[in-house]
């Protein structure tokens, strides 16, 4: 029994699920297969795919980042605040957003590794609420519009298309390729999996586990801020009230469906992309079929529970196989 079977076969199940979902949607709605709709799905996927990138890193280290949605919103609100104070250079606004996200992610990491909060669940849940409040404070609880104010550059990432293909998704693909190489082919990437698998053994192997963890949360913050930029481009506004939208849940769902585990040490970029696409197709399908948003949330909740259940069953099967293998050795 090998740890990794040869490459793409690992994703057959997830890919099959996506395919079946698409077939069902095609049959259920004649609007589904239209190019316009498919591009729409990709646009919708961009946000979740970016947020899920950071979430995946946190999950691989056996942690979690519940602040991702709030970081995305808060970064946008900071840009809105600066704009309302007369900063009208798009590049500066974008840089401030990305820096804000990275800084918050780093703080999340430091809370865990230097102040030794017991689990990132605690620090990031707290951070989510801090940012919710902060988002409303900096925007005075008002929505702030970015359109027609001389900062169109801020809107480009989320709104521009190349021959109808959303630029945001192109960026997502580039980031996924970079992250895939980082995770599979660099020592830092392999260290992330090892920290998730056994932090003490990793530390005693001379790897600074604390720095690896902090890096993961910093990346998570950066990706969330980038996702915030995409949202501004799509909606043209920032809205502090969005900080408590269940963006984190969608990201967790994408990762878990894609093969990540709450026990850490598992998960890939390819799987996460498939997971994010499945979520988008589901949400898109519900909209096309005019399913009430309450039902959307209910079904997505069930999908998450189902995915985690699948992970638990996989874990138990692996443990059983292990016991049998151990018995065979004796």
């Amino acid at each position, binding site marked *: 029994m*090998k*740890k990794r079977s040869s490459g793409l076969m690992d994703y057959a199940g997830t890919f099959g699920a996506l395919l079946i979902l698409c077939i069902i949607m095609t049959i259920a709605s004649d609007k589904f297969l239209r190019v316009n709709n498919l591009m729409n799905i990709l646009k919708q996927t961009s946000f979740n795919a970016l947020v899920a990138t950071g979430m995946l890193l946190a999950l691989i280290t056996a942690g979690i980042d519940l602040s991702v949605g709030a970081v995305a919103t808060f970064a946008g609100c900071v840009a809105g605040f600066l704009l309302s104070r007369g900063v009208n250079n798009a590049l500066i606004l974008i840089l401030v957003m990305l820096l804000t996200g990275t800084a918050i992610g780093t703080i999340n990491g430091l809370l865990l590794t230097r102040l030794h909060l017991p689990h990132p669940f605690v620090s990031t849940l707290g951070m989510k609420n801090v940012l919710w409040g902060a988002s409303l404070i900096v925007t005075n609880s008002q929505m702030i519009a970015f359109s027609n104010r001389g900062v169109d550059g801020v809107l480009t990432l989320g709104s521009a298309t190349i021959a109808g293909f959303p630029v945001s998704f192109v960026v997502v693909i580039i980031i996924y390729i970079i992250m895939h190489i980082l995770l599979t*082919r660099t020592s830092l990437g392999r260290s992330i999996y090892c920290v998730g*698998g056994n932090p003490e053994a990793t530390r005693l*192997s*001379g*790897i600074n586990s604390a720095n690896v963890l902090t890096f993961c949360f910093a990346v998570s913050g950066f990706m969330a801020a980038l996702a915030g930029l995409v949202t501004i481009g799509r909606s043209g506004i920032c809205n502090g009230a969005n900080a408590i939208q269940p963006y984190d849940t969608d990201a967790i769902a994408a990762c878990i469906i894609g093969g990540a585990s709450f026990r850490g*040490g598992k998960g890939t970029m390819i799987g996460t992309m498939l997971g994010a696409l499945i979520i988008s197709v589901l949400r898109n399908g519900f909209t096309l079929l005019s399913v009430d948003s309450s039902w959307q949330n209910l079904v997505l909740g069930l999908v998450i529970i189902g995915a985690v259940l699948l992970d638990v069953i996989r874990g138990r099967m692996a443990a059983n196989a*292990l016991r049998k293998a151990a018995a065979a050795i004796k």
Partner: protein
Amino acid sequence: MSEYVVELKDITKTFPGVRALSHMQLNVKPGEIHGLIGENGAGKSTLIKVLTGVHEADEGEVLVNGEVQHFKDPQEAIRAGIACVYQELNMEALLSITDNIFINKWIKGSGALLDYRQMHRIAKETMLSLGQDIDVTKPAGSFGMGIQQMVEIAKAVIANAKMIIMDEPTSSLSDNEIEQLFKTCRKLKEEGVGILFVSHKLEELFELCDRVTVVRDGEYIATKPIGEWNNDDLISAMIGRTLENQFPKKYGTRSEEPFLKIENLNELGVLRDISFEAYGGEILGFSGLVGAGRTETMRAIFGADKIDSGKIYIKGKEAHIKSPRDAINAGIAFLTEDRKGQGLVLPESIGLNMILANFKRFTSGFLLDQKKINEAGQKNIDDLKIKATGLDEAVQQLSGGNQQKVVIGKWVNTDAEIYIFDESTRGIDVGAKVEVYEVMNRLVQEGKCVIMVSSELPEILGMSDRIIVMRDGHITGEMKRGEDTFNEESIMKAAWEVQS
């Protein structure tokens, strides 16, 4: 009434592949403090577990007050009057002393409500009878280890225990607390309670016990009144195995200068004034009892724990080691005692575990060099004779011996000069042990420095060129191969002996 409160007759207990107890005997009289002593792994813990109903004996009888008992679980043993104060205390630090004493045995008043007035009163009286005048409504965590241990004893007293087992009760107590514990033991003795006092410290047995039983390799050796034992008798009763030639010792050429020199290493409450030198081409053994501070010394040198003071020199130059990374850069490899908890990332592949301590060597540019990884990994597998389906196999699927070899491979790949093997042969089969010894041989023949921490005397005598013995966090002896003192008896004396 029987003469003995508890009697074990011909107890045999076998675990898969190991005979933990063989025809074990023990008898404890009421009002007696009975010492139990034996090396690490001599069967003391199994014996306690049989007495407390954790394990059921395969053969033999357990008698309490002359009646044969078959304990199916710990509750039955408690009901029969056998209580145990374990080495690791199970205190609820935030709950009061009273709550801790009455956990799961709450006294209810009228209705279903708990009668705290009565519980506090009984707790207070019981603690007072044990010589502890304390406020029992305060949280257990606000008291020291000594009081917390008294809480365990109070539980036994309230449960009306006829015999109390104390498993190394003094290991985490201060001198004052030990004195208080002894007083309490004598008081319980006057009241007719039998005490089985398990200790690693000979002087405590001489001070406290009426009779002492020695066990070795799961077998009963002797029981005698304390007056008929002396230091040397006890030690030679505990050892006395013959060394077979299962240790293929080979010799390297000892370096002129020490590779590693430690000066006055101190870690408050753990290590004091550790100084020694280790040379290239030499296996330096570290012997001593569990808890003597050997692993702690190695962790301190490796930068895994912080030290309060002390200097580390590597090949004559002072090394400032603040983290495992610094230690690895300085050329130290540390094969940890607990390979699953600290040595390996179990769900990951053999290949990844092999390169974990030295990513730099396997990286070109930004990326890991898969070709280098595969070549080195295959060489590790061949050199160390690891039985695996390939580099991709997850480490958790390997047997203990093969896992240990992966740990060895990981450290050999760091090209270290100093290799610390901490209990590296524990829990692996004899064949794999010999292969680990062969690795040590190869390293010293290449001129590397090997430090071997081991609790098994035959192994440490069989493989070491020099042996350092530790006790209570400091060094108590050193023996060189070829000298008269290079034997089990001197090691045991240094590890156990009464010191003034």
